């Protein structure tokens, strides 16, 4: 059985069932596009882009188009735990009116503390009502780690003084799918760094359902929106890697697609920030770049409407989409080459010409870590 045909059929059936659900928004996507001066052609370009981003063949762009129009059938509930709001901010800063943000407007955003108008008792009512009304159908996004020490007392939410732990478990119970947005929700993040005084954990460690982890501090809005789109289209999780990150976004190392890769291969390195090599855009490995150990699409997607990304700004990657990176990737401005990572020995830090040979071996070993736990058919 051709897996793509099967997946396409699944998507078609899924969208048919969504089409039978009541509309939530008065305006169709076409109306919104007109309002922002976007043409059908822009839209088709975008659907093709999303298809390729999700590593799907071109015919799937029809499904993307249909899913975009049906997005308002899927309620989204967004919870904040132990976090800094950076992931919400990343999403809010998505490209100037493009379809990604329109889709986000189209999705029925039932609860999001940073953006919603209601407050206090009434806000909590909105949450409880949404959990009840859309039981089994809502998409749950969680930003931030869950403090578990002291029975979760390091975080309470709402008038009823529920702990973050209780809130997450309650919301997870009725969710159609759960997405951990950012490294904190995925793996615990900064508050879980040693000695982890609040017992902070990733969401998947406190609920008994599969959770999609969108690593990154913050993840790009593309990775968030792409994940939502996939769920709307197929009603199931995309292919995930060993850390439950979507393969289409986290399938390659930063190092593999870095525009400074040629300098690495040629042995041309920045020796010190601000030196002549830095002005020429040489490889940042020697000033601590963690690109060889980090899986994310930053080099191709970049941030803020493709404005830049850390390596373009002359600073090495810090490995922010990886579990425990605060402990395992520190010191951020020194080459790694002295630790075991993901169970693989990374030895890659001497000087001069040796660096290349050793680094290449150490880094090459990491390609093995790309073996994914699940295939496209789960």
């Amino acid at each position, binding site marked *: 059985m051709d897996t793509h045909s099967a997946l396409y059929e699944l998507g078609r059936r899924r969208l048919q069932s969504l089409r039978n659900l009541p509309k*939530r928004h*008065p305006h169709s996507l076409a109306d919104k596009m007109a309002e922002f001066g976007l043409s059908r052609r822009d839209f088709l370009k975008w659907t093709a882009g999303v298809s390729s981003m999700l590593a799907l063949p071109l015919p799937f762009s029809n499904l993307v188009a249909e899913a975009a129009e049906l997005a308002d059938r899927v309620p989204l509930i967004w919870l904040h735990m132990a976090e800094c*709001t950076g992931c919400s901010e990343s999403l809010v800063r998505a490209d100037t009116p493009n379809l990604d943000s329109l889709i986000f407007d189209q999705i029925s955003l039932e609860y999001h503390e940073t953006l919603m108008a209601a407050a*206090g008792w*009434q806000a909590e009512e909105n949450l409880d009502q949404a959990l009840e009304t859309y039981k089994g159908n809502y998409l749950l996004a969680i930003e931030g780690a869950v403090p578990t020490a002291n029975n979760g007392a390091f975080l309470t939410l709402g*008038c009823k003084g529920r702990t973050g732990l209780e809130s997450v478990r309650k919301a997870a119970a009725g969710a159609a799918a759960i997405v951990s947005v950012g490294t904190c929700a995925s793996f615990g993040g900064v*508050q879980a760094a040693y000695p982890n005084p*609040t017992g902070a954990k990733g969401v998947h460690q406190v609920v008994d359902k599969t959770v999609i982890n969108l690593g990154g501090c913050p993840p790009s809005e593309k990775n968030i929106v792409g994940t939502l789109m996939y769920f709307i289209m197929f009603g199931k999780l995309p292919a995930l890697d060993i850390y439950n990150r979507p393969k289409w976004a986290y399938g390659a190392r930063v190092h593999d697609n870095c525009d400074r890769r040629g300098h690495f291969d040629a042995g041309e390195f920045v020796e010190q*920030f601000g030196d002549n090599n830095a002005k020429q855009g040489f490889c940042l490995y020697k000033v601590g770049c963690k690109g060889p150990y980090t899986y994310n699409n930053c080099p191709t997607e970049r941030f803020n409407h493709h404005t830049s990304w850390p390596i373009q700004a002359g600073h090495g990657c810090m490995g922010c989409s990886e579990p425990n990176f605060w402990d395992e990737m520190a010191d951020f401005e020194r080459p790694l080459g002295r630790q075991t990572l993901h169970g693989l020995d990374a030895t890659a830090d001497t000087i001069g010409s040796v660096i290349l040979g050793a680094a290449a071996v150490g880094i090459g070993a990491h390609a093995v870590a790309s073996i994914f736990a699940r295939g496209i058919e789960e």
Partner: protein
Amino acid sequence: MNKRVVIDPITRIEGHLRIEVEVDENNVIQKAWSSSTLWRGIEVILKGRSPLDAGLITQRICGVCTYSHYRCATEAVENALGTKIPLNAKLLRTLMQVSLYMHDHLVHFYHLHGLDWVDVVSALSADPAKAAREAMKYSPHPIAAGEGDLKAVQDKVAGFVATGKLGPFANAYWGNGTYKFSPEQNLIALSHYLKALEVQRVAAEMLAIFGGKQPHPQSLVVGGVTSVRDMLSPARLQEWKQKHAIVADFIDRAYQADIIMAAEAYGAEPSVLGGVALTNFLATDDFLLADGEYLFNAGVILNGDINGVQDLDPSLIAEDVTHAWYSAPASQHPFDGTTVPQYTGFVERDTVYGKLPTLDGDGKYSWVKSPRYQGEPMEVGPLASLLVSYARGNTAVVEAVNGLLARTGLPIGALFTTLGRTAARMLQTQLVAHEGLRTFDALLTNLVSDESTYAKPEIDPDKEYRGHAMIEAPRGMLSHWVRIKGGKIENYQAVVPTTWNAGPMDSQGKQGPYETSLIGLKLEDPTKPLEVIRVIHSFDPCMACSVHVMDFKGTDLGEFRVAANAI
């Protein structure tokens, strides 16, 4: 019989904030408690790590004022190590800060604070043609306020309401009597709310140009900045300037216009003419315009005496945890501050919503501590910064403040209100946007003869170091304090703006700005406390930041000399 009102979550802020108030039979607030309900322990996590990583870690305290902690931590470590960074690095850091303010304040006014002033439902009954004429009153060239623009916005919202599905606008306090805009004014502001969503993305791109990304830029290092290629690229510099022009234009033609409109509409609304019961203000120097020249000044105002502005002496800062969820330490030096949590939970009692767990006002009730200056609570933020600079006779600030007062016909006393606090933030944004171009020009001039961006820091593992930095973050004065031993962080503490503003009562029974700003406020309906939300939002709460603060009490910093922005 007093009634207890519980407000949790306070939405449209950064983080987790709980406010409780007690109202009398006339629904006038008699008592108020402010509580942060999350502790993350980042200062504990910093110990034993490389001081060169302090900036990247502390940046994760907050994703809204992202960059403030990054810069402050980097400069605290530079101060400790005695690293002198090149002028280009100082100027580029300032340009990033200009970008941050233009983004952060704009988002705060429109997307976090706006719906406290703007009744979305009322905008439905507006006449778009009349509204377009109304907009001309507040700006000669309004943005997104032509009849067609306004009609489109109205149709959009009308469709929303017709389905009965308000999504993020559901279940708010629409129709509350303290909303004062006419339907036409609500429609104008609503149109700007939507337009600002676009503009703020451009502002975020400004920071990303030199920062790599926003939130959480990644181009500062101890010793300078790394985005040397962007700095040396004329195209990149021009890109920044173009985006700056777009955002500055919106600030002048929409943000300023809406504040003037609000001053007019709300000029007689009692619930926004209080809110500054405490008249102590604290601010530091920031925004390097050229070598050694700052846009805003440091100083202390006590009891509203703007004629007696005093110099800021950090040795007079003290800290109290009587009502915070930490075990009270003995008197401690800032470099020896500890953070030991001691959670005591809630107390069950009757409220306007029935029985609920509530704050224990007699005991401990917040993860935020209570910083004090000479034993007094202080307000920090845009209002404090402007008042201190005004008191110092800072020409740019005096002109801006007097200009706004003249334009709105309000007396100087109007600054000491919730409305004034909100207006001050706009003025600060405008000053930063306009004057920030001087920094840009200073950078261009310096680049002609100097391309340096980095001075390598030296850390001797056998030596001990200590240092600090003080800056103005968007929400007020921020300081970081670090001790380094054996090449590692021995101790780290941050004193954060929202801590000053949101802290609980101290051992003397003195309350901080949030709590005092609510006393005497009359609520139209205690079960729908819009008035409280509006006052608290005027401070722009940032709770993730506020739970990071040092522990110390009235200690003498001894030989430790402080220069603001010491680099």
